[in-house]
């Protein structure tokens, strides 16, 4: 989230889409109710299903799963057409005035630079026109060798067009090549008629939503977009979120209290996971993973750091990449990382291709990957196409599951259709502590890292993950010491400074993550003190300040809120720098005066920025005009994304889902042309809706947490059985009554469960076509403890093995199925 949960009380309107906060984030969601009770805020819910969030919303609109790009593009068009945007904000805080180069084009669904053979864009033309010879900052990105993607897998983004110089601007926004004018053109195709015909949202409902949310484009109103994995689980997921960013910047809602682009993160501790790089493409703190061919630290820093595109851009990442990287290397390799060996940069992994979740399992399936660990994650349940994943696990030599409970993965040889005799994989189950049994921090969706204390000691021989991973490391290191190996340096030189080497306490890990000044040994207060000379060591710059000489800041429980804005700066600690609202400089005008005096983010008091912790140099006067978005090379928010950052285009464009009942009416390009795809996967996709006529979506219920709570009797009692939600009209058509058993089939697999026939699933009218949607919750499986789950009750038996172009997040939502009564 750019904002945070308590800040929801400052909103005038909520657009909740692809999320079900009442069910999945009830504790944070209560602040939306506070906004409604105290400010009269409106709550809009857009979702394929009428859920418990819809039940308390002021307005619900059904939407066809996977058409969210169209929905947001339609809202953007409505805001532009009706001039509802916050003009002063748009001119001051966005790149609307930037001039895009002549060579950038968009034709019939494709942006310039597409190469059909590689299924990739050369994004060189997605660039601003530059003022020649104006380059001040030498950190220009350089072309780096990129992945050969002929295997069909998506490559990491190409290097940007490295034309030197600042971008040209037209602050009147009138230049036909200005971002603003290009936007008007691009989004004008997304008329309310088209939106309704593609999304299935009745036109009058769409207009009602557009009117309510569009009204937040004034200085004294704040609109909040709340989303979750309902938006990211699509082949164009990243572009859907881009649509939110564009809408919110046009309305002046980014950086403002009560506004924001607010992702609800998964059950604890997904936010903390991603922050600390439990994802292949980043190093801790969202630093880029080095690529093959990067031989030196310079290669890496020059490629990863952004080029400065405007004289008013602070371009924070552009200037600190080296000190952040050196500090990280010092943390990992200690004294072995020296200036002479380039701080051991060569020891960092440089993955040769996209090594995301689907690739890992695809490699296992192809027997190129021999061993796998599951920790806090269950491969069989959590990925797409469970049958394919079970095949992957069956092809492993060994498989380790660390979990408090047996999972569908630790028991995968019992899966239906699997003959245990045939499975040669050696499976180890290591019972671990549950989070209730260990201390540590959870980072919530609003970026608050909150320390929690173990509630119970673990029983019996159960060990915590720290112990298990420490043992793994210590024994591997011993093997390397004794036997050598191909590349022992990173293992032998990894620092291991813990008091208890066998079981490093989480507090010591937190101190490492925070970082130290190495000459004094003192914990750092701020990442601004990171040095590139090897005198600081920082595990994750985002968390510097969370565990300092003053103590564990995440364990604070101060309830002072002097501004009344709900910042609660002494409650826990939020990244970065204990800042509660990101981009908060944009909450004020050119003079540093809050857009809304009753809801100040930060304000210039004549000598300092005060209020929230400023996302800005605290003493930089507004008249100097430094840009509010200090992480971008532009210094402002990006309505148009220049090349090198995204794989599928500078503006969001609608493409149909991998499996869809509709042919894309917007262009000749039916599907996302750069979706993350395996060569053999399309054979498992339905080509159209003839065999599989209904759109299915998957989701979680408030009563359960993933697959774990099938082991909790009270929760099984509260929501006992797997079910399939069907619209009344579809059920009637198929002769299915409420509580009848049904079979749901996709091209990949089938599930069997009880039909819940409900008015909450609405048939959608798309032009002349009526489309029915089917809802399938994810919680049931064959290793369910108290649950009564069976093999054929795992939602992901149905889902397709394809991912988002940029993130490779699988398309769990909006695929085709058929339904029949058993």
């Amino acid at each position: 989230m750019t904002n945070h949960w308590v800040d929801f009380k400052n909103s005038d309107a909520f657009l909740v889409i692809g999320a079900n906060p009442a069910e999945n984030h009830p504790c944070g969601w209560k602040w939306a109710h506070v906004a409604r009770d105290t400010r009269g805020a409106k709550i809009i819910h857009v979702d394929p299903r009428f859920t418990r969030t819809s039940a308390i919303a002021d307005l619900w609109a059904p939407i066809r799963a996977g058409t969210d790009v169209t929905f947001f593009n339609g809202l953007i068009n409505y805001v532009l057409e009706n001039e509802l945007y916050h003009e002063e904000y748009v001119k001051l805080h966005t790149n609307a005035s930037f001039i895009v180069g002549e060579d950038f084009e968009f034709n019939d669904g494709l942006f310039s630079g597409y190469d059909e053979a590689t299924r990739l864009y050369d994004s060189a033309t997605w660039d601003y026109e530059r003022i020649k010879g104006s380059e001040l900052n030498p950190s220009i990105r350089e072309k780096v060798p990129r992945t050969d993607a002929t295997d069909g897998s998506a490559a990491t983004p190409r290097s940007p067009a490295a034309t030197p110089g600042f971008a040209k601007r037209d602050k009147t926004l009138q230049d036909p090549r200005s971002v603003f004018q290009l936007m008007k053109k691009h989004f004008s195709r997304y008329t309310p008629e088209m939106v309704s015909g593609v999304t299935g949202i009745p036109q009058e409902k769409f207009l009602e939503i557009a009117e309510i949310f569009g009204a937040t484009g004034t200085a004294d109103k704040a609109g909040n977009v709340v989303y979750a994995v309902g938006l990211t689980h699509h082949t164009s997921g990243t572009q859907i979120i881009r649509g939110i960013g564009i809408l919110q910047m046009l309305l002046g809602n980014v950086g403002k209290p009560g506004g924001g682009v607010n992702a609800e993160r998964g059950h604890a501790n997904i936010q903390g996971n991603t922050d600390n790089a439990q994802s292949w493409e980043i190093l801790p703190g969202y630093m880029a993973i080095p690529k093959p061919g990067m031989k030196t630290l310079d290669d890496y820093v020059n490629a990863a750091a952004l080029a400065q595109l405007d004289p008013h851009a602070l371009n924070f990442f552009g200037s600190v990449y080296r000190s952040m990287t050196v500090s990280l290397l010092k943390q990992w390799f200690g004294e072995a990382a020296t200036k002479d060996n380039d701080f051991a940069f060569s020891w960092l992994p440089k993955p040769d291709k996209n090594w995301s979740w689907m690739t890992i399992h695809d490699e296992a399936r192809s027997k190129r990957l021999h061993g796998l660990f599951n920790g806090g994650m269950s491969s069989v349940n959590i990925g797409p196409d469970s049958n394919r994943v079970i095949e992957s696990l069956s092809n492993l030599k060994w498989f380790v599951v660390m979990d408090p409970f047996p999972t569908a993965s630790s028991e995968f040889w019992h899966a239906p259709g699997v003959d245990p005799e045939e499975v040669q994989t050696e499976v180890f189950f290591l019972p671990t502590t549950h989070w209730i049994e260990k201390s540590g921090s959870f980072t919530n969706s609003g970026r608050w890292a909150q320390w929690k204390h173990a509630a119970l000691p673990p029983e019996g021989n159960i060990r915590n993950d720290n112990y298990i991973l420490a043992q793994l490391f210590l024994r591997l290191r011993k093997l390397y010491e004794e036997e050598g190996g191909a590349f022992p340096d990173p293992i032998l030189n990894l620092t291991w400074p813990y008091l208890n080497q066998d079981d490093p306490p989480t507090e010591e890990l937190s101190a490492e993550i925070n970082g130290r000044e190495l000459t004094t040994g003192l914990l750092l207060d701020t990442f601004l003190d990171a040095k590139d000379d090897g005198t600081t060591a920082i595990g994750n710059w985002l968390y510097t300040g969370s565990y300092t000489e003053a103590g564990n800041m995440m364990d604070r429980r101060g309830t002072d809120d002097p501004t009344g804005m709900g910042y609660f700066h002494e409650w826990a600690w939020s990244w970065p720098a204990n800042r509660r609202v990101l981009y908060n400089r944009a909450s004020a005008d050119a003079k540093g005066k809050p857009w809304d005096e009753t809801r100040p983010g930060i304000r210039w008091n004549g000598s300092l920025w005060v209020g929230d912790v400023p996302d800005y140099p605290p003493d930089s006067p507004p008249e100097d005009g430094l840009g509010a978005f200090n992480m971008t090379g532009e210094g402002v928010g990006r309505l148009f994304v220049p090349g090198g950052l995204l794989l599928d285009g500078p503006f969001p464009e609608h493409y149909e889902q991998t499996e869809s009942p509709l042919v894309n009416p917007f262009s000749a390009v039916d599907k996302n042309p750069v979706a993350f795809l395996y060569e053999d996967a399309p054979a498992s996709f339905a080509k159209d809706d003839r065999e599989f006529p209904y759109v299915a979506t998957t989701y979680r219920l408030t009563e359960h947490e993933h697959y774990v709570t099938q082991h909790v009797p009270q929760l099984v009692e509260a929501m006992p059985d797997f079910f399939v939600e069907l619209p009344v009209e579809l059920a009637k058509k198929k002769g299915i009554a409420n509580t009848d058993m049904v079979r749901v089939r996709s091209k990949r697999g089938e599930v069997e469960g009880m039909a819940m026939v409900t008015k909450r699933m609405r048939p959608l009218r798309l032009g002349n076509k009526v489309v029915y949607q089917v809802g399938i919750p994810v919680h049931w499986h064959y290793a369910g403890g108290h649950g009564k789950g069976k093999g054929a009750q795992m939602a992901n038996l149905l889902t397709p093995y394809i991912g988002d172009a940029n993130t490779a997040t699988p398309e769990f939502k909006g695929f085709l199925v058929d339904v029949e009564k058993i």
Partner: protein
Amino acid sequence: MTTELGLAVKRKSATPSSGTNIRRDHSIKQVEVSKLVDIDLCIGCKACEIACKEWNDLEVEETHNFGSYQSHEDLTASTWDLMRFNEVELDGNDIAWLIRKDSCLHCEEPGCLLACPAPGAIVQYENGIVDFDQDKCIGCQYCVSGCPFDIPRFDSKTKKVYKCTMCVERISNGMEPACVKACPTGSIRFGTKEDMVLYGEEKVAKLKARGFDDALLYDPEGVKGVHMMYVVPRGEMLDEYGLPEDPRVTGLSFFPLMSGLKKLGSLATWAGLLGAGVFFLRTGRRFPPPEDKAVASAREKEGGEEAGTLSAPHPEETNRKEGERS
């Protein structure tokens, strides 16, 4: 010694004039407490259901999905709190999903208590809580028939009737009921009745401003008010929520009969049976017939009621007062 939230007894079932005024310190005003369920804030998460089970150590039951998000089809002897889900069609293409926490409303005029023939099996405290004492319950289920909200449930194994106690033991120790504590949105509130009415009235005004013209605070007159009120956004849909529009205590209460016949001593047994019979004729049979033997034996035991079965106050207080008045 009573505290502000203390458990001075207001009345007991089948027990004439069972108040505890003699021992009460009149300088301490008995606080009338109430829960309030603000349906506008309720997200149907069932945390209250589970907290209720956990705190009261109630048996986990084997449930089956019956085509609804509702966990159990009905309240049971070990499910005292149930989220009820009802989908209704509105004008146009819109729908509403009515979700209501169903549990004892703790009536000011409790139909269960008035119907109960077992002395002291149902107690109403001055703070408004209506509680069952299963040690004294004779399993006749008149309370089930007497309740206008259909709350008490008979357990065929223990032959006793159960319902929400409003976590009386938590309240008397300065804590809120378990369901209130577990509620993540503040939908279930707890406080003095006065404060809750104030909150409710303010909330109803806000709902009306939001376009819920029929929003109301559910605190029905027919039972002289309740100690679990609801803020109902769609007041025109009480029936769909499963709330009676005008609940009343029907049938003859057992208590007036008893007070008249008390002096007849050993005849009390017969009086009990007579009273039960009259009640039965008036209200009809909804559950298996009462166990008349149990009624009779309870009547015999009446004089020598054992002490200490309720956590507080001391039952002998009430016995002494009975003697005075009768």
